[in-house]
């Protein structure tokens, strides 16, 4: 029994060591944005406790920023629920993409799904776990690290936010850079090129037709339609 526990601890240690470098851009981005979120909540009269609770329970970056408006207007839980589904709709496609990778991972799977955000999805769907690491521990390490960065950032923002003097303007671009690089990584596999182009073109179309505030769901539907209609061609 002790041997098994020791074994597992050893495996987890290796997994975190291997996973950490992949999450450094997320660490940077989540600290900046998490601090921004903590400060913003503070300025609306919500203490660190509430900001951290929101980050830990809901864990959905962009929706949390949208929700600040909700928290300062009136009590509308149904509206908050529906808005959350719409803003988070893209996760449906992340789930479909991760069905295969998250297969047969046992108890850990629930946590992986609970914390499947944009950044964790982009890393876990692009990176193949090294052979020295057990697959489930590797994905667990990525998910847990990203999740903790967001909570840590929120906490720091609530506590020290007002005093940060280092000029961080533009640092949040690190997450855009992460997505650009992981997009390029996906493009290395020739099979992904057409799908990547479909993603870019459909999203630009969605942005032009529906505007910055409403682009995500229309873009997802265009992507879905093109992928389904082009199945015969894209498969070969």
């Amino acid at each position, binding site marked *: 029994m002790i041997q098994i526990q020791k074994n597992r601890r050893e495996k987890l240690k290796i997994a975190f060591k291997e996973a950490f470098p992949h999450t450094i851009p997320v660490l940077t981005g989540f600290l900046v944005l998490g601090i921004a979120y903590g400060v913003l909540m503070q300025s609306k009269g919500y203490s660190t406790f509430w900001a951290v609770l*929101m980050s830990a329970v809901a864990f959905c970056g962009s929706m949390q920023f949208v929700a600040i408006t909700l928290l300062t207007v*009136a009590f509308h839980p149904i509206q908050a629920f529906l808005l959350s589904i719409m803003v988070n709709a893209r996760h449906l496609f992340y789930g479909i993409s991760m069905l295969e990778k998250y297969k047969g991972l046992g108890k850990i799977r629930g946590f992986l799904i609970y914390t499947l955000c944009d950044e964790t999805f982009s890393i876990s769907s692009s990176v193949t776990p090294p052979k020295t690491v057990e697959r489930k521990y590797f994905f667990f390490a990525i998910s847990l690290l990203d999740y903790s960065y967001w909570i840590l950032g929120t906490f720091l923002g609530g506590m020290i936010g007002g005093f940060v003097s280092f000029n961080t303007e533009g640092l949040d671009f690190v997450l855009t850079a992460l997505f650009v690089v992981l997009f390029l990584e996906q493009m290395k596999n020739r099979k992904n090129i057409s799908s990547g182009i479909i993603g*870019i073109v459909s999203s630009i179309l969605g942005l032009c037709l529906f505007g910055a505030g409403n682009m995500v769901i229309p873009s997802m539907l265009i992507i879905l339609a093109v992928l389904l209609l082009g199945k015969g061609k894209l498969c070969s």
Partner: protein
Amino acid sequence: MQLTGLQTLITILAIALGAMLTRFTPFFLFPDHKEPPKIIGYLGKMLPAAMMGLLVVYCLKDVSFLNSPHGIPEIVAIISIIFLHKWKNNVLLSIGGGTAVYMILVQTMFK
């Protein structure tokens, strides 16, 4: 703080419920022990690259190309990322380099 503690708690739970519905639904519809339909397997293979494209466009959605600075910092930073990545092929270096280029541009040249 406009809402009471209880109202805030309920709002947080409502938002979490909405988010979790979008995260868990695919895994509920296509459980581990059953082979998902072929079309879902096909989408699972194609969607990651497409969604990465969507995320890139989404991050740039508020950039105005018509008004100054015409998205120049973003364009220059992304081009540097592409070059860095082709050259050194190091994920962290490309991300760090691109971010540094962007920060220098928005803090000095395009204030």
